[in-house]
């Protein structure tokens, strides 16, 4: 059976303004919470396990399993926390924003249910700082939910008490990584922690902490409504349910689309997204956010699910599908992606901090047509030396895609060397793109070069 659009999370959001509590309630909002409060907390975790829902933030770890790593509330010596990862910053990804913008109460309801299930009294929503409008929407929704008694002491008349704190980030991609997020939440520089201990054992304030993505948490009410087993029937094996895919790049109708997992990539790009504009050809697709290896045009028949992507040597990641047409120079793409990860490297571990910078240096030289053959091999070797050696996956996120661009579009890299310049000339869609890193170099020298001072 062909998979396609199927709305759970975004159901009714097209017809109604679900940011309003009354509207959300009118379509059955907070019913799942009432249902959940009648269940034993452990039974909710069982439903999550049965649903087979895998995390929507990137790594795809089963939510129920993660929740079951937490100490049972009666055995915990410290308070248990829920942290919702709303730092969405992976290039190409904008689905969490859509969820918060359109169905904020689904996230709040999901957070309250999850807190109840794991015995947490406090949930933090770590919200990307740039999402100011979404912050206001979330704050207003939270106030309404508090007034209505869905959040606070004695949730919906039960014995449970849940406080939700929205914590705004301030512009650092790395804070999407769960342990960096915890550091940031604790008021430190957002640098990842080495694991173990895992957050489930020692997370924020060294207390047991469950961390899940916005979409994951916002799906919890649907799971409770349908029942875990029923939810598990959606999608395909190992990839249960629906996901909100973010479609962008060279495509006619970019946007967020909720689809059953297993929907073919081609159908998303062509049937739903309207295909490639301006009569151009499809060249490549990034299927899961900028950190995953690229797919060539002939690989788009694959279904969008965890296993199919893994079979193609890439990942479903954050569900961000970036469509690239034939005007894009893949060396420029590599450079721009590497610049992003260099700019976002936290600076804690050596291979990521030094390696991403080196990658940018080599790619720049390649792009400018000044590189020699050996330098392309050096680039691949540098990627290789970053891969798997870093403290957190950010280094891999820089090395993997770039290595895949070279692997799949090697002739384009080769031509930059042989022709001493970009074969696209100024015609590349990515020509001249300026990353914030360049801006730093050009205009913020003082941050780099620190003047000599005498303490005479």
């Amino acid at each position, binding site marked *: 059976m062909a998979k396609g659009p199927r709305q759970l999370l975004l159901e009714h959001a097209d017809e109604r303004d679900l940011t309003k509590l009354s509207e959300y309630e009118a379509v059955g909002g907070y019913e799942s919470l009432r249902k959940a409060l009648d269940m034993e907390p452990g039974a909710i975790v069982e439903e999550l396990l049965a649903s087979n829902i895998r995390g929507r933030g990137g790594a795809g770890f089963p939510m129920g399993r993660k929740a079951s790593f937490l100490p049972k509330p009666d055995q915990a010596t410290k308070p248990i926390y829920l942290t919702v990862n709303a730092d969405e910053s992976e290039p190409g990804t904008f689905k969490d924003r859509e969820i918060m913008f359109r169905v904020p109460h689904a996230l709040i309801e999901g957070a309250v249910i999850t807190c109840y299930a794991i015995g947490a009294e406090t949930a933090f929503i770590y919200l990307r700082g740039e999402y100011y409008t979404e912050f206001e929407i979330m704050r207003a929704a939270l106030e309404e939910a508090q007034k209505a008694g869905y959040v606070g002491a004695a949730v919906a008349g039960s014995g449970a008490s849940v406080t939700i704190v929205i914590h705004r980030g301030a512009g650092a991609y790395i804070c999407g990584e769960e342990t960096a997020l915890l550091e940031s939440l604790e008021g430190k520089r957002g640098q990842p*922690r080495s694991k173990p201990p895992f957050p489930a054992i020692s997370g924020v304030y060294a207390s047991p902490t469950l961390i899940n993505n916005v979409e994951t948490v916002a799906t919890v009410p649907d799971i409770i409504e349908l029942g875990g087993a029923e939810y598990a029937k959606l999608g395909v094996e190992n990839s249960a349910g629906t996901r909100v895919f973010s479609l962008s790049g060279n495509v006619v109708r970019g946007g967020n689309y909720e689809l059953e997992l297993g929907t073919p990539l081609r159908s998303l790009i062509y049937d739903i997204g309207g295909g490639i504009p301006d009569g151009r050809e499809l060249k490549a697709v990034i299927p899961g956010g900028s950190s995953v290896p690229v797919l060539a045009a002939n690989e788009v028949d694959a279904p969008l699910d965890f296993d199919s992507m893994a079979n193609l040597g890439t990942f479903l990641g954050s569900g961000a599908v970036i469509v690239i047409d034939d005007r894009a120079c893949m060396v420029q793409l590599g450079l721009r992606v590497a610049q992003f990860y260099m700019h976002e490297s936290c600076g804690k571990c050596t291979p990521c901090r030094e390696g991403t910078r080196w990658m940018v240096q080599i790619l720049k030289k390649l792009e400018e047509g000044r590189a020699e053959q050996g330098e392309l091999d050096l680039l691949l070797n540098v990627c290789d*030396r970053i891969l798997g050696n870093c403290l957190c996956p950010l280094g891999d996120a820089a090395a993997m895609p770039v290595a895949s661009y070279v692997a799949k579009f090697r002739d384009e890299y080769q031509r930059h060397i042989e022709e001493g310049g970009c074969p696209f000339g100024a015609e590349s869609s990515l020509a001249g793109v300026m990353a914030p890193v360049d801006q730093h170099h050009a205009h913020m020298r003082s941050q*780099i070069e620190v003047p000599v001072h005498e303490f005479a």
Partner: protein
Amino acid sequence: MSTPELVTVTVDDREIRIPKGTGLIETALACGVEIPVFCYEPRLGAPVGACRMCLCEVEGMPKLQAACTMTAQDALVLRTAQTSEKAAEGQRAILEFILLNHPLDCPDCDKGGECPLQDLTFRWGPGNTRMHFPKRTFDKPIPISPVISLDRERCILCYRCTRFSEGVAEDMQLVARNRGAQSIIATFEDEPYRAHFSGNVTELCPVGALLPATYRFRARPWEIDNVPTVCGLCPVGCNVWATTREGKVARILSRNHPEVDDGWLCDKGRFTFDHLRADDRIKQPLKRVRRRGFDPVAWEEAAEEAARGLGEAEGSVVVAFSGGETNEQAGALARLARQGLGSNAAIVPDDLDPAVDGFRAPLAAIRDAEVCVVLGDEPVVDRAPVVDLWLRAARRAGADVITIHPAGSIGVSPGSAAHVARSLAEPGTAPPEFRELADQLRDTQRVALVWSGDDHDRGRRAAALAAALGLGEGSGLYVLPRTPNGRGVSSAWRAAGEGRGEEPPEDGEIGALIVSGDEAGYDPRVARLSERARFVLTTAMFMGDHTLWSHLVLPGTSYLERDGTVVNLEGRAQRQRRAVDPPFPDELEFFAEVGERLGLPVSPRPDEPSPALQAELPPRSRPGALSEPAPPPSPNGTGPGLELVTYRSLFSGPGVERVEPLAFQRPRAELELSFADADDRGISTGDAVLVVGADGVGRELTARVNRRLRAGVVRVADEHADGFARHVEVGKV
């Protein structure tokens, strides 16, 4: 404590049984395998796994693992670069990345020859570089304080220094700024790193990025000797190496004693050595010839003169000790006075009652305490700096650290420690907060009681409190003496005669006064005695007010120039070794010479102390009958204005004040006042304020609002409080 479970770990095919939870770096070492590390330093807290130098293969794990972040578990199989090609490649990768932007300027780097990065590069590094792009460049070196310089190009961003600043000293002044490849180590707005323990970062830095400015281009590793000794500048007695080159002290390094100092040094201990070469150092005997004039005299003549002056005193001799002498110096002087000259009167700075030793415990036990109580108005960090680090470590480990003083977690009026001690010992009538605390302390197994003030009544009050609280094994009492070896000096004095002897006579003429050392000369009681003495003999390193009223001045030595033993605040005897020869006979030799002339035997050289004496803390003494402590001094009483509390800064004293690069650490001409008092007067931090004492003496100081300070109290460092009485009026200028 239960014996730890042993597990079997295999490192490069070698099996070992080791306590579960031992770090893998240590486990490998126990197997004779060295895993290279940069960021790993257990004293800085939990490992961070930042530099990735220690990547190893762990069986069952697909990726290389940072060995420093892992611990020994049963059946764990570890392969290091020595047996795993994957690990070796990982290690080569990391070393290449580390060296990528490093300038490789080893030939003119002061760290050269003592540099872990240099050693690792030599052993495992690539022979050439594949980096052909411009490296990151910075202005360098930049002073981050007058005693530390920072070379950002050499920095490998291991974050040891910033972790020390944030997580050990907790001064939070040396930080990482920016992100990613732009990260740098920095202070706020390039202000100097001004904190009591800043110098430790120069030892923690595994490359030549943070170096003591005072050692810059001073020596190369093959030209130096490192002499193991014990710091003689405060009662902690940190173990140090004195690095000497051509007979001069060039630097002081820590020599980790895990029970005493954990390898940390304060900046006073680390940087105070150049005073040995101060311009105004006294280098030969001086004899008063006119009312205010001195002439140098030969050693022979000086000994002759001293023998005459002391001989003519006819038993009316007072010895004023500094508390910095070695036990042997103090013993010689004590025997000279008590056995030879028939005198029993002395000023002994820290004559603690032996009852204190009934609750003896190593300093490291503070870290393991569940509750720490600090009593007294003197900041611990200024009196016995490393104790402050132990207390911070205790807090981080989860202890309740309760400080009771005007800026403490329990704010009390200045001079209340003795009263509080009595409240805690006899909580029946005490205010509720002390009753609760007393209950808590009685119910706690491991208590560290620290007394940091002078109203401890020779430690008897502290011991009485410890006894009342029933402090047993695992708990400890730490009465912080004012002087480095006050405990040793007082024992030496007691051992030379009948008990403690007498206090100096209240009035009347004195035959002779012996002022032993510069610190004694600063004591106002000594100044008053000198006016009544027919003959004043002073040993001192430097000329000062006190030398002016002496009849004979002998050059004094520093702890770096002495051989002998000292007793620290724990009651631990440690060995001081002569790092450099003094440019003249030391005090012991001189007093032996004088003794000979008077026909009194004074041994010139100490016996070689037994090795055990150098490190171990003697067991607790059996608690004898505790004599009743004197009643607590009467409270300050209310007066007009604000109550003044003063303290002695760590960075004051005759030696440290002569170390020019440490001048920036001297206390500022600052008045600390509470938020409430500042608010009342419309004063903000940085405002100029006029402080007027009861006697009408006025002085302008800079205000600093201290939110922890109790309302009604102001605090000023000793040296800026001259002429102030116990109450002052404060107003904005």
